[in-house]
């Protein structure tokens, strides 16, 4: 962990070659939150680390959503058996670069992550009854080849 990054590790994980899946709370259709939440439930994800909010979120009070006070959360969950790490977070209001580096510090130094999947929704001109298509933007030729094997993917280079 780099010094100065407010990362809290509650339990060290025994991961050898894991994948990290990231989802943001403010996604269209709640996709990021729902998909990562589903993974956590089904694969029994256990919270093991978090990023402290003070450097990244405005802390002048709280927002109320659905009658409840909401507080920014940035949490890591480990699905040990599947070599999978799930990161659920609100989008930071400041210091994005530092925040993302904090995420990658945990991935690299505590989870031995070899690949990252960032989930999100995309608005498109399609009917709600039409089959979904997934669009993937990748940052390596290797990943492009792997995802290109699946029919439902439309893969683009970043």
């Amino acid at each position, binding site marked *: 962990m780099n010094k100065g990054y407010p990362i809290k590790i509650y339990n060290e994980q025994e991961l050898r070659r894991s994948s990290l899946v990231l989802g943001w709370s403010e996604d269209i259709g709640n996709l990021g939150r729902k998909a990562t939440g589903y993974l956590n439930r089904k694969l029994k994800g256990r919270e093991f680390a978090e990023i402290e*909010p003070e450097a990244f979120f405005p*802390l002048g009070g709280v927002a*109320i959503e659905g009658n*409840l006070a909401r507080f920014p959360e940035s949490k890591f969950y480990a699905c040990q058996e599947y070599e999978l790490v799930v990161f659920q977070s609100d989008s930071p209001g400041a210091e994005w670069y530092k925040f993302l580096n904090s995420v990658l510090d945990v991935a690299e130094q505590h989870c031995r992550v070899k690949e990252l999947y960032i989930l999100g929704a995309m608005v498109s001109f399609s009917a709600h009854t039409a089959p979904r298509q997934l669009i993937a933007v990748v940052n390596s030729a290797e990943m492009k080849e792997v995802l290109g094997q699946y029919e439902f993917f439309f893969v683009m280079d970043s």
Partner: protein
Amino acid sequence: MYAEGKKAYQMANLVLDVAEKFKCRRVYTSGAAVALTHHTTKPRVWAVPNSESLIPEIKGYGNTILMSDIEGRGGHGNITGLNGLLLGVSKKRGFEAICLMGEIPVYLQGLPLSYPKASKSVLEVLSRSLKIEINLDKLDELDRKAERRIEEFYQQIPLEIRGQLDRLRHVTYAQPDEPGPITEEEEKRIMEDVEKFFKKRGGGG
């Protein structure tokens, strides 16, 4: 003077450190909610919990409303400052927390007057929640004094604006699906008139 940002976060955590030390399970914060109400009506208490499980309990308090009961809010809003931050940090640290906010009429918000009526409403709810009987007689006495000063101020408001404000006597938030006694347009006009009045008075204190 208010703590802000990182300092406020640290302060909220310090408060909860003490709460933890004394084995507190729940945190209550309180404040004012500026509302379209009249000073002759009993102020309601807006309650914001930090956990879904507290909602049934809050609904049983009486004279208490959730954000979704307030017309036009849709269950959304903000609580600024430590009152709000403590709810959030409590959630993060595993404490139950409820913010109780007493309604203060919109036209009194800029005045250097205390409003014991709202304090009383909040304390009534708090005593129900904590199951502690609190003698509020002293607060009634303060309320009577404050009421006289508020009434003096109220009579100084130009008749036309006062006429608009008098309509707030009948405002309710209980049935958000039904049309209220004042329309949105009227609500806007009342706010504009009140602002104009305070500007003329030189800021209104």
